[in-house]
């Protein structure tokens, strides 16, 4: 009888739904507290206090913000293309959520352990640009459109070098599966042998998530707020949530590719007792802190500098590094044996 139940579709679907909820729930809470952490951390870095009034240490601030946003009116600009205008923030948010399906939180702790996990992540992150460009076009406003154009060019440019960096990692692993990538780092995190690529990847993720110093698409000094200037209330909140969920996603991608995922830094006694998911979350928090740190300390790039960095420096450099990595692995006979999976 139990056998019959476990093999029925209903139970399978219910189990998958439960898994999805187990990921999305904490993710949304993490997004809420990331916004608070950002304001607090930047506040401290600039010798301010940041929001500290609502609740102890300002811990209820995100909920106050959420309530405020929900209570506001959703404004649809008269000249806007209504369908696309409302679809764009939803798309941004959906894309930021669905990518989590393949992220391994621990050994075997993954919703969909697919063979081409890293390609799936890359594909989903490359779609993020659609939310931005659709919002910019549908708003029917100059500022929004300019912001969207900048963003499209920027995200497409940095994706190229990100792809090449991923190829570097894949050369060392021999599999596109994210769990296999983490397992390959049991002896040494890829952040050490591929340190230059680690740096290039991190900077590219900054550009890909439109974060400072590459936040030109929303550059408030010249574009007011860029592509989401016409959005208000919950449609704005979806963009906001999507942007922060994307930051967490990109951090987890960095952790999986370069910082050993759920593995402890050293496989010695007090460290390897702590369960894998805790390590994974700690590492994500470290990368996110650097995100905030960069935002608090660096001035915004100019547009031509941004393009120069992406196309003239990162692209040739990561391409050369692919050749170097492949050559080194081949010469020292360290090319990974390709797994059957």
């Amino acid at each position, binding site marked *: 009888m139990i056998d019959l139940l476990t093999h029925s*579709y209903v139970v399978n679907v219910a189990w998958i739904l439960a898994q999805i909820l187990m990921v999305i729930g904490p993710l949304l809470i993490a997004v809420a507290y990331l916004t608070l952490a950002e304001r607090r951390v930047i506040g401290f870095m600039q010798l301010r206090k940041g929001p500290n009034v609502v609740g102890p240490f300002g811990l209820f601030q995100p909920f106050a913000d959420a309530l405020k946003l929900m209570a506001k009116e959703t404004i649809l600009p008269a000249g806007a293309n209504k369908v*696309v205008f409302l679809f764009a923030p939803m798309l941004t948010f959906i894309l930021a959520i669905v990518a989590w399906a393949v992220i391994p939180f621990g050994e075997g702790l993954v919703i969909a352990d*697919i*063979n*081409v996990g890293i*390609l*799936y992540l*890359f*594909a989903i992150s*490359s*779609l993020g*640009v*659609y939310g931005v*460009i*659709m919002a910019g*076009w549908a708003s029917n406003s100059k500022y929004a*459109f300019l912001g969207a*154009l900048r963003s*499209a060019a920027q995200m*497409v440019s940095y*994706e190229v070098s990100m*792809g090449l960096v991923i190829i570097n990692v894949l050369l060392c692993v021999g599999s*596109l599966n994210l769990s296999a990538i983490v397992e390959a780092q049991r002896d040494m995190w890829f952040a050490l042998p591929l340190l230059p690529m680690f740096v290039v990847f991190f900077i590219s993720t900054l550009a890909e998530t439109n974060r400072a110093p590459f936040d030109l698409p929303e550059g408030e000094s010249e574009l007011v707020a860029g592509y989401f200037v016409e959005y208000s209330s919950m449609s704005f909140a979806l963009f906001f949530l999507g942007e922060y969920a994307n930051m967490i996603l990109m951090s987890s991608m960095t952790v999986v590719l370069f910082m050993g995922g759920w593995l402890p830094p050293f496989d010695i006694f007090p460290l390897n007792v702590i369960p894998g998911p805790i390590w994974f979350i700690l590492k994500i928090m470290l990368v996110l802190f650097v995100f905030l740190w960069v935002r608090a300390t660096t001035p915004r790039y100019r547009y*031509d*500098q941004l393009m*120069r960095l992406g196309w003239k420096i990162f692209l040739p450099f990561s391409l050369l590094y692919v050749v170097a990595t492949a050559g080194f692995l081949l010469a020292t006979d360290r090319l990974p044996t*390709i797994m*059957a*999976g």
Partner: protein
Amino acid sequence: MIEALFFYLFAGIMLASGLMVVVSRNPVYSVLFLILAFFNAAGLFVLIGAEFLAMLLVVVYVGAVAVLFLFVVMMLDINFSEMRAGFQKYLPLGLIVGGILVFELVAAMYGDVFKGATLPEAMDISNTRALGNVIYTKYMYLFQVAGLILLVAMIGAISLTMRKREGVRRQSVAAQNLRSRAETVEVVSVPSGSSPENLSTAAVKSTKTTSRNGGNT
């Protein structure tokens, strides 16, 4: 059973969005429907177990090609009524092209071309590896030729669009980095009561150097 359901779902949406690409009045909608069609094609690839191709389709076509496409279409200043006027003029040509394609498809399906073809057997190696095994061995030269064609297209596009203009102030990072402190900044002490203009020889010199080196001040 579930698989068949998903096949008809993907195939149905793909056909419908393909139709919408052609009949949409707004070209931006056309591109968006094209993207939807790509997605469903990726879904069909997943159904036959070609997950690598599915992901590549999304990365390359949706993530890069369609973005640039959308980019261009959004920036075009299109008069929709004028476009409708041209519809009848171009209809016969479109029908001829469409007819030829349909004929080829039908001929391929019911002719001898696909007679012996079946879906490849599911192997225990992933299709990423299977593709790599043939592309980098059997079809190596064709693969290289494809790369060369893309290179030529790239060089062509660059040479068509690149132009040298006079009077453009470009940032030269090397020149900026090679400047020494001495030729840029001079610290002078201004006695109180006198105006800085009186000792401005040094200041004038330094501004000149700055602009000559293309710095953006």
